[in-house]
Every structure is written in C-alpha cells, then in structure tokens.
C-alpha cells in the first residue's frame, strides 16, 4: 500500500509517497504555494505519483498537514504540522529529543520523549522576525536570492547587531545600517544571528539533544551554524529538511491505514 503526505506550507507545497509496508519514502515533490491550493497540491501529487510509477488507484490514504491542510479536500484526514514533524523526525532520527522547524510563516520548537511522541511544543506565529520570511525580506532588500545571502553571511567579519522585534522595523534598521556603510556580509550574518537568538529563546536553557533542524530555512548552512552558536549545542539538519512534515504525514497515513 502506497500512502501520501502533503504539507501545504505558506511558501511551498511538499509531497512525499511512502511504501506502507517498508515504511520507506519512494517519491518526493515540491511546488510553490499559490492561491488555488487544492488544485496545486493535486497537480503536484499527480506528478509525483507518475514519476514513482504509482497509479491513482494504487494510492492508499492521504494525510494533509501544514497551514493549508484543511483546504485539501481530497485528503483523507488532516493532522497538524506539530505531530507530523515529530513523526518525520523520529523516523529518520529515533534518538531526537528537540526539533527546530523554521518555515515560511512560523517557527516551532518540539520536545520529544521516548518513542518520538511530542512532550510539548512552542510556536512563534505572531511575529515574522522568527521565521523564514525575515530572511526573504532581507535577501530582497540586498537584491539577492536566499542561497547567495547565506553564502554572503559566511564571509562576515563582524555580524551586525539587528535588534528590531518586527520584520518591517528590522528592514528599516537594515536600510539604516546600509546607509551607514555597513558591509552586506555583516548584515546577512546579523540577520541569521538575530533569527537564531529568537529560536534559542524558544528552546530554553536546558537543551535536550540530539537537536534536529527541519523546514525550508534548514537548507541554508549558515543558519545551522548560527543556531549552534545561539544554543551552545550541536544542531543536525534533517535529511531533506523541507520534506519532514510531508514525510511524517505520509508515515501517519501508512500507520493508520487499513491493513488490507
């Protein structure tokens, strides 16, 4: 039985197919999010099924997650990204104790107990300064892509201090720094440090390892380093971090499927 997980995030939709018996991922796909979420997700799923050589008929349960989960009416059920991330991380890293997920419009920290169950979680969803959106805004202001911003940050000599609690004001702060002649590299590194500090405050003082980093922002190597500095603890990036939520959703679909 093949099952699918669809993570309808704020910036991208991710699909993962798993073989329900072997509990192994057999297909992946990602597409930009848009207005017609349901249709976009459906199209993406069809493409991933085709590539994996699976017919629509052979597809078993479908679980939707992410902020757009309730818009995917063709899914069998919706499960929050909290539970899905915990499941996805536990599958690849059974010893994981802390999950840091930084997505496009929110960030969250999960503490896991034995067996990968969620012990508790904190979400930052009121303030874009703790999310991937912050990095995007700054990259746009500096006129570059996310990957280039990350590389640029790696060359910083002295990360700039960016203390605004709000992305809009942080952008103003950055315009001020640029006007004062601050090196863009220092600004790029400063943004990552600022984001990492916010996340570290969510994690709290007693960091339980291993710490696994998921979400689209985990694709930026500089962010992992910034997090390690802020936490004072090693951080491991999840395998295919952008797909952790979708993988968890697919695994939960397989787990709850009828054993027929």
């Amino acid at each position, binding site marked *: 039985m093949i099952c699918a997980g669809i993570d309808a995030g704020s910036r991208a939709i991710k699909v993962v197919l798993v073989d329900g018996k072997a509990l192994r991922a057999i297909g992946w796909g990602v597409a930009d999010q848009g207005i017609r979420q349901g249709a976009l997700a459906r199209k993406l799923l069809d493409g991933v099924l085709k590539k994996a050589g699976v017919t629509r008929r052979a597809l078993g349960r479908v679980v939707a997650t992410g902020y757009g989960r309730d818009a995917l009416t063709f899914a069998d059920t919706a*499960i929050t*990204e909290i539970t899905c991330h915990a499941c996805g991380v536990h599958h690849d890293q059974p010893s994981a104790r802390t999950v840091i997920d930084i997505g496009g419009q929110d960030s969250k920290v999960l503490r896991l107990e034995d067996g990968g169950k969620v*012990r508790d979680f904190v979400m930052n969803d009121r303030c874009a300064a703790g999310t991937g959106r912050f990095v995007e805004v700054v990259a746009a202001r500096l006129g570059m892509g996310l990957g280039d911003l990350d590389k640029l940050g790696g060359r910083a000599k002295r990360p700039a201090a960016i203390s605004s609690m709000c992305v809009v004001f942080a952008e103003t702060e950055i315009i001020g720094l640029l006007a004062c002649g601050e090196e863009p590299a220092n600004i790029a590194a400063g943004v990552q440090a600022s984001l990492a500090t916010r996340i570290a405050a969510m994690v709290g003082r007693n960091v339980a390892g291993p710490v696994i980093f998921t979400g689209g922002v985990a694709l930026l190597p500089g962010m992992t380093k910034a997090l390690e500095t802020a936490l004072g603890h090693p951080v491991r990036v999840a395998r295919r971090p952008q797909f952790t939520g979708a993988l968890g959703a697919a695994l939960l679909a397989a787990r709850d499927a009828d054993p027929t």
Partner: protein
Amino acid sequence: MVDHCLTYAKAQRKKGRHVVGMTCEYTPRELIFAAGGIPACLCGGDVDMIPAAEEFLPSNLCPLIKSTFGYSVQKENSFLEMAELVIAETTCDGKKKMYELLAETRPMHVLELTQKPDDPDALEHWVLELRKLKAVLERRFKTRITDGKIRDAIALMNRERSLRRRLAALMKSDSAPLTGRELLNMKSIIAGIPADLEQYEKALRVLQGRTLNPPASKRIRVLLIGVPMPHGAERVLDLIEANGGLVVCQENCTGVKPILDDVDERATDPIRALAEKYFHLPCSVMTRNDRRLESLRTLAAEYRPQCVVEVIWQACLTYDVESFYVRKLAENDLKLPYLRIETDYSPSDSARIATRLQALFETVKERGKS
C-alpha cells in the same frame, strides 16, 4: 443573559434599589445587597470598545482593561450608565491606573487590596477596607447596613455559589451533560437575581439525563485556567470546543475561582467573615499565590482533565509571570500537557490558536495510545 439582566436592573431601580458597578471578584457583593444595591459586573469583553479606549490608554495594555474603559468612553454599557457607584480595587497596576481615569467621569470607590495573603496584618487591613466601604455605601445611599442585612445577603450569595458549584460539578462526570460554553452562558452579569437561581435549580434537574453529541467521552477534557473571559471574549473557549475539546472546568474568575468558598452565615462579625473569604481569592496579583497552585491540584483531581490550557490576556503581567509555576505544576506534578495562549480580543490569531489546540489534542491522543 444581558437582556434579562437589563430588564431586571431597570425594574429594580424603579423600586428604589441602586445599581452598583463592580469590576473584580474581590468586591463582596454582600455589602452591596445589604445597602439596597444590585451588583452588576462591568468587565468589558467587546473588542469594538478598544479603539475608543486607546485614545486614553496605551495600546500595550490588557484588553479587558481597555474594553471596560472603552465602554465608559462610548457610554455603551447600560449597567455602567445606570450605576450610581462603581466599586473597584487596587488589583493590578493597569486596572488601578485606569480607575483613576474612570473616576474622572464616574462615581468611584477604590478598595485597597493588600497583596501578601498570608500576612495577618494584611487581612486586618482588608477588614478595615470593607468597614470603610460599608460607611461609603451607607452615606451614598442614605441607609444603615445592619449585621442582619449582611447575613441575609451572605445567605443569598451562599445559595447562588452553591448552585453554581453544583452546576460546575456536573462536568466531573465522564458523560458531562453540557459544554463549557453552555456552563459559562449561565453565569449572570448581576448576581442574586431570583429568576436566575430558579433557572439554576431547574438546570440541575433537567441536565442530569442529557448527553452531548458527540458525547463527552469522545472529547478531550480540558482544564481552562488563567484570565477571566467576560461576556464577548469567549473566543479561546469556543476554539477549544470547536476543535474537539471539552472545557470541563474553568479555574478563572468567570469560572469556579470565586464560588469555591462560602461565607460563614453565623459569624458574630459578618464583615470579618466576608473579608476572610474574599481576601483569599487566589488571583495572580497576590504574592506568593500558592493557594492558586493548591486549587489547581484539587481541580485536576476532581475534574480529571487530559490537558491544561492557560489563557493570558496580552500584557497581563501577573498571570504571564506566574505561568512559570503553573507550567511546572502541570507538567511535573499533574503529568498533564500544558499549553499557554497569550492573546487579546482580536480574532486575528484564531487560525493559529486552533492549530496549537489541534496539536495539543493530537499529543494527548498519542500519549493515550502507549
């Protein structure tokens, strides 16, 4: 609920009784009754009252304080407009300073609430504050408050508290017959209305055999704690119950907190008896507020929740800081998942709060599987 309270207040005024506004559960309603008054709760729960308040008050202030004040600015709260006196207390700093502004246009009396609940002299001070309040009421309403009148009022309030306690206790059952919202809706803005007490008795009879659909056993039992939810500000409670939860107990001031203890009807000094009950309300303005943690332990044992949800109004510093102890109690002692929701009256974060609640309930269910 508002409508019948309004009809009642108007009718009673014609009979010569005085509407007295109050803003906090520390105010002993018994003294208001004994002075020929009817106590009406003025706490604002309407988000639309906030913009008017923000012309005077900082935006980073508790929405309950702003909404209450906004009602006054807009003259939209009929009970406040009818009130011949408003009684308030020095609870938190936000309220205390707002009352100064309120007193510019409204007749006010502020009780000084001392905040060390275990100091014997603090209680003595509260006894004196209540004696002063008695004198204020007597002067304003040209009446004499006798011990007999206070004892009658104590009996009335004890009866109401007992009925409301019994209604709340229906939720202890695995097959609780009503939702948390239905229970909250029964709380009246004005205490001691005879028709309300009859309704409570009737509800106790009628609700016994009722079952919810879906039944209570299919819902996640939630202990809802923290700040009060005045009329209009029930959003988080509704989100809990719309996402598969059942609020089996509200620990806050719109829930069971003020009705857990009665007042001794036969005390030789009824004012002292009142002071002893009201002074020991476990509000987060008290330091230390260990009574609240004790009460949470008892409520958790009685109502057997599967998780704890704490609501904190934005900028409510005392509940916010105290949540440190509450989380520790929930997680370490009660072994219950704990979710803290800081929000205000605007619906902007409803979808995000719903996600957190769904995740909390999923966590509860996952835990139940092992």
